[in-house]
């Protein structure tokens, strides 16, 4: 399982999917022109986890979202990715989701709360100062 690192662009977030410490980081903005194509690489990475779970350095997957904004199609893909991960939970994977939001940004906080509510998975929310 390889580490996947993507640099941020004006329209897409920086992504760091790291098997060494079993973490997924999404940072920046997200409104890809082809949202399906963009997030498929993340889904592909997630789908490899069950096959390599025993070899991975940790059994706790930490997912960190620190997004400035994301469009509604991205929100749907975040849900799809989390659904895939929740399926793996039954195979012995622990999961921690951290959702960072600018402390003045009620919208990003609400987006996290709504996605958390929709999937029935508790997120840890952390405000930060920009």
């Amino acid at each position: 399982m390889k580490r996947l690192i993507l640099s941020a662009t004006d329209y897409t977030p920086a992504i760091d999917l790291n098997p060494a410490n079993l973490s997924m980081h999404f940072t920046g903005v997200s409104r890809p022109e082809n949202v399906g194509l963009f997030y498929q690489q993340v889904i592909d990475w997630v789908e490899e986890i069950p096959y390599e779970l025993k070899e991975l350095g940790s059994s706790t997957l930490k997912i960190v979202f620190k997004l400035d904004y994301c469009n509604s199609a991205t929100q749907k893909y975040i849900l799809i990715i989390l659904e895939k991960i929740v399926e793996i939970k039954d195979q012995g994977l622990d999961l921690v989701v951290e959702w960072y939001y600018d402390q003045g940004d009620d919208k990003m906080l609400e987006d996290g709360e709504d996605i958390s509510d929709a999937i029935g998975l508790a997120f840890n929310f952390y405000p930060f100062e920009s």
Partner: protein
Amino acid sequence: MIKQGVEHFLHYKGPILYDTIGQLISDLKERMFEARIKQAVYKKVLMVMIEALENVFKYHEYFEKDKVLRKNFPPEITIDKDKSCFRITCSNPVLKKDSNELKKRLDYINSLDRAGVKEEYKNIITNGQFSEKGGAGLGLIEMAKISDSILGYKLDPINDKFEYYSLNLIINYG
């Protein structure tokens, strides 16, 4: 005529391409910074603008090829600021055959209270399928979540194939 106390905060009329949206995001950010608008309000206006414009962009090829439509009924977005709110209006041609479905969807969303809007969002994000245009079907409900008004709209006839759709909503500030 511009009403007293109303400021044209942002205005664009013309084709909506993917990069056009990027440029308008930059313009809005700059204007918001200059006007010292609170982050919470800026983000709400920004997300409504993005959702509205991405929806126009998804369907742009239906009318971009039509010279008369392109000239006389181009997409347009206006963000006005008055003493207490931002008024966002986004207009574009839509296929007449789709307008009944659109009207039904808008009327349904407008019939929901705040809790109902949240429930509908949850329903669509969980069960909705992506359209062939890559839309998640969440755009209107996302705008309803953000808006401090109902989703006001107008559908005016253009010809036997198209109508001109205008969506307007309000975001309070201060």
